[in-house]
């Protein structure tokens, strides 16, 4: 029986100390591994019951904790106004400035 993975002890390195992965993977590890990956079926042959794309967005914010996610390098929400208060504030300020510029332009035209 051929095997691509069974002849090598699985390793998991962290904190500078390579160590054998003795216990089960964390949920964050598994989600990171399985989300957005693999063969995709599109078109009418598939059954769109589980909206993975939408779930992916939500899940990445919720993975265990924000710290864990950031440690995993997932920090896209920092720049997403929907999820980040600072980004939301920046977006709001941006909107207000655009309105003021538009207003000034109107005055100039008038």
């Amino acid at each position, binding site marked *: 029986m051929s095997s691509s993975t069974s002849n090598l002890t699985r390793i998991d390195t962290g904190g500078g100390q390579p160590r054998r992965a003795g216990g089960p993977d964390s949920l964050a590890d598994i989600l990171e591994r399985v989300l957005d990956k693999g*063969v995709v079926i599109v*078109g009418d042959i598939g059954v769109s019951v589980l909206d993975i794309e939408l779930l992916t967005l939500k899940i990445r914010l*919720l993975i265990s904790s924000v710290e864990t996610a950031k440690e995993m390098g997932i920090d896209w929400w920092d720049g997403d106004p929907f999820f980040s208060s600072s980004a939301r504030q920046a977006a709001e300020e941006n909107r207000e400035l655009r309105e003021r510029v538009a207003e000034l332009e109107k005055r100039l035209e008038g």
Partner: protein
Amino acid sequence: MSAAACIYLYGIVDRSLDDRCLRDWMLDGVSDGARLEMTSAGRIAAVHTDMSAEELSGVDAEVVEGSRLAELARRHDAVITSLASLGAVLPVRLGTLLPERAALATLLQEEHTGLADALDNVRGCAEWQVRLARAAAPAEAPEPVEPAAVAGGGGTVYLLDRRRARRRAVEQYERFYSVLEAVDEALALLAKDTAGPLLATGSARRRSYLVPQAEQPAFVSIVEQGVAQLTEVGGDLRVRGPLPPYSFSGVQLGGGARE
């Protein structure tokens, strides 16, 4: 089979895979009590279970341990990891359903060439994921110190110490990316394929390598040396593997063929 019954897909494997293994595993698949089965076409086969569509429609983004989604992801990964221990496997994306077996058979026949080629591409290989959990912090350039001040008292000593500290930080930062680049290049040379940008570009945090089985001991050796070297210069490189080739199975099926 009821109207709500569907086929949940896990992966594409060689038809020659002994399906008795699936029964021996006693894996339930993503649905309680559902047994793993194989449907073949040509030299490939799909591994799947029966599942009620209602079982997935109630899944939400609750990802704490014990939630339905967590259980689904764990079972999906467990099946694919088990398949990878038997031979080549193309993981199918989490949550993929087909309406019936006839649709699966049609899909396998129509997409046989592409799937067989993709399966050949990952055959004998495993995925290794390398993640940069912490990079060395960028340091400010050392400030110039006036020659007259060097001859002075305590303030001069302070400035000199500060300059030395900054110089050390700059050197460490440069050393970090030099080591990272060398490690990345060495790993890529051993890999059949990579997914993701070079880690040493500065913005990348994660890269996956498709590593042939024969190269995996050398890959691990470089990883272990790299982890030790990078830790010395303030970095934290984390590596997981061998894993099923999730990042190297990006095949899209079913698009356009039925328009």
